[in-house]
């Protein structure tokens, strides 16, 4: 059960589930609303069992869930695990974005100082 997993395990399961292009396409499809297993399988040149296997991985990661419906086996997207993964990546990104913006400024400065002292050759060695 996915909610019994630790935060770290959940992230692992999420990223592992997202590491496959077919599964990402399935999620993108579900982002627009509930879809039956039959309809989910249609755009892919894959057998039903193959699609079912992917759905199982997504379910285990808590990324999708089934909806009780007498006729159709509907699947819907569960946003929470994706939000956790997004948050995680965004935090990482913010941390580095700041540093890289600082590097941009430094690069601008270095380029300017080079222009003002054209005689200086590129120093390529580290003393």
């Amino acid at each position, binding site marked *: 059960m996915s909610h019994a997993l630790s*935060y*770290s395990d959940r*992230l*692992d399961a999420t*990223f*592992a589930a*997202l*590491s496959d*292009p077919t599964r*990402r*396409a399935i*999620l*993108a499809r579900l*982002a*627009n609303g509930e879809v039956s297993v039959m309809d989910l399988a249609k755009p892919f040149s894959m057998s039903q069992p193959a699609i079912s296997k992917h759905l199982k991985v997504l379910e285990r990661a808590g990324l999708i869930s089934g909806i009780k419906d007498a006729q159709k086996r509907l699947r819907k*997207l569960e*946003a*929470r695990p*994706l*939000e956790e*993964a*997004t*948050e*995680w*990546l*965004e*935090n*990482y*990104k913010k*941390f*580095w*974005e*700041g*540093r*890289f*913006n*600082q*590097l*941009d*400024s*430094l*690069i*601008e400065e*270095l*380029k300017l100082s080079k222009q003002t002292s054209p005689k200086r050759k*590129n120093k*390529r060695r*580290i003393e």
Partner: protein
Amino acid sequence: MSFIGTLKVEAKGDREIVMTREFDAGKDLVFDCFTKPELIKRWLYGPDGWSLDICEVDLKVGGKYRYVWKYLKDGSTMGAGGTYKEISEPDKLIHTERFDEPWYPGEALLTTTFVETSGRTFVTINVLYETKEGRDIVIKSPMEGGAAQSYNRLETLLNTLTLEGKK
């Protein structure tokens, strides 16, 4: 500066993170910024309030580097270091990374490549963590409470993961 500076962060497999970003300079200069202490000190600090106090680099295969950041408010420090595994100036740099007080278990192996096109340099940093858990860095920033099902953020994530066939 319009297209410069868009940082892309992607999770790859279950142990890797890949960061890509473009810089408005040739690769010699960008490589220097990643390897010369006097330059590293001028950008590799942060988040706010942290400065890079100690920065020692022995740029040779088997050579070590050491960074110590200081939090100005209370003087606390955070140190990290590693060993250079491969140096192909100014195209590629491979080194290990380990924090004194690990915020992730084990070591990471960082492969940084510098590719120059028309005077701009495209930097790719591939971070390979030793363990799966290693990639799940504990981020101490307060999580936004009450996050509802936000499909915008889902879309961001799906974009981040280079999804094809996005609606």
